[in-house]
């Protein structure tokens, strides 16, 4: 059986000889990352080879942690955000007195994941920031809106962040004709069943506005759009928007899912299945 991370007791963070031996014996993988972070900080540049070996191991470990969490559907397959966060983590490691620098010695993985979550949330928020109010659009030309793969055009950036006025739809799905809106009338339990059969997450990835994603996920958990009951929360209260906005956001995402070819196929009678 192979050695697991944390199986071995690491040398003290200031024990240069101990770390030299551990590196020579290829034992870094068996130590907790917190111990490596502490050694990296405490040994500093006393031995360049040791420092570089620790840096290499920490760098690869950070990449591994990040890769597990970053979707390949992100720009440049997620590599940009991964490298950005890896850089932030190393900057923090090089500042032992900073909050992150101290935290990495205590809880390496959780801190790295937190930095990633913060970076993803910041990216989401940046994309969700209101720019200018949209001008009233002319009705779409015939055939427009159904030629491309659905989802890629959803753009929460144009949604006024704090406005209840949602008269302007923000995704292509809104331009669907009633016939194409194949899931809009399905009850949520049927939708759930259907979503089990398609890669919903891949589709949700294209919803760049985090508020809409969250609204849809809460809706799938049967959280009400609005409630007057005391001590009961609603999608509207979670997102601090009106009931109408909450409903429109969920509808947008449902329609986007409805546009997906996989869902359309599910709606068609299948060969060998009794109707």
């Amino acid at each position: 059986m192979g050695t697991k991370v944390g199986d071995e007791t690491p040398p003290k963070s200031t024990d240069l000889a101990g770390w030299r031996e551990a590196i020579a014996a290829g034992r870094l993988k068996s130590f907790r990352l917190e111990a490596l972070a502490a050694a990296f900080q405490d040994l500093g540049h006393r031995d360049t080879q040791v420092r570089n070996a620790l840096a290499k191991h920490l760098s690869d470990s950070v990449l591994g942690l990040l890769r597990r969490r970053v979707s390949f559907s992100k720009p440049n397959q997620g590599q940009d955000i991964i490298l950005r966060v890896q850089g932030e983590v190393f900057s923090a490691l090089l500042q032992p007195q900073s909050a992150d620098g101290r935290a990495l010695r205590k809880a390496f993985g959780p801190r790295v994941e937190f930095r990633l979550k913060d970076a993803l949330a910041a990216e989401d928020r940046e994309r969700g920031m209101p720019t200018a109010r949209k001008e009233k659009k002319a009705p779409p030309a015939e055939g427009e809106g159904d030629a491309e793969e659905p989802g890629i055009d959803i753009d929460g950036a144009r949604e006024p962040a704090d406005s209840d006025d949602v008269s302007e739809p923000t995704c292509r799905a809104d331009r669907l004709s009633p016939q194409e809106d194949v899931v809009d009338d399905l009850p949520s339990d049927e939708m759930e069943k259907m979503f089990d059969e398609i890669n919903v997450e891949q589709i949700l990835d294209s919803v760049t506005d985090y508020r809409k994603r969250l609204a849809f996920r809460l809706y799938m958990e049967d959280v009400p759009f609005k409630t007057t009951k005391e001590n009961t929360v609603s999608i509207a209260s979670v997102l601090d928007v009106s009931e109408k906005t909450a409903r429109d956001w969920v509808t947008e995402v449902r329609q986007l899912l409805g546009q997906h070819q996989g869902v359309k196929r599910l709606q068609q009678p299948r060969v060998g299945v009794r109707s």
Partner: protein
Amino acid sequence: MTNRINAADRDEVLFAFHQAYERPTAEQIVEWTNRYPQFAEDIRAHAAVAWDWAARPTGADQEVDEIVSARAYSQALNLIYNAEMSSAASEKEATCRTFQQMVAAVGKETYLLAREIDVGRGVLADLFNGWMRPPIRQRLLDALLGPLRTTREEFNSALECALRQPYLGHAKADQAPVVIQRSCDEIIRGDSSMSQDRKRYWLEED
């Protein structure tokens, strides 16, 4: 809500939120946004990412692309190098005694010192502000060591400090302040307050 949240610092609040819930419920999101209204939108954005993560199983460790690994390592080494350079520069600056400190220590002003050794005040100002490129004329250097009560080594160290961090002066309305460093000879020749004789003297042409 846990008691360990007592600081309203954004990172602390968000990290505590991250640690507390793998997939925060609607109630928990509302509870936290009510408690920290200043971070409400951050909390919602973090909650949305938490839900994304919870919905996508992470599975086993992912294979990391070799090219990405090499780029990341190279980035790490660059950061290490930059940190070392910056730390070395700060150490030097911390031990460096500036010209301004030397002048103040002998209870003088630059113009008084200039008058004392009979050199243009602009020459000394340029030297002390880090606008004079070495080498410094030997005669000027020798003339300053005594009145500044300093040594050649300390003078050179102050010169390095000044050159590393030159005084920037005031920014113009339409551009950032710029530093134009000139040679010692150029500065002496261009000083309008000195006679030609004095210039020749400081240029060691007599």
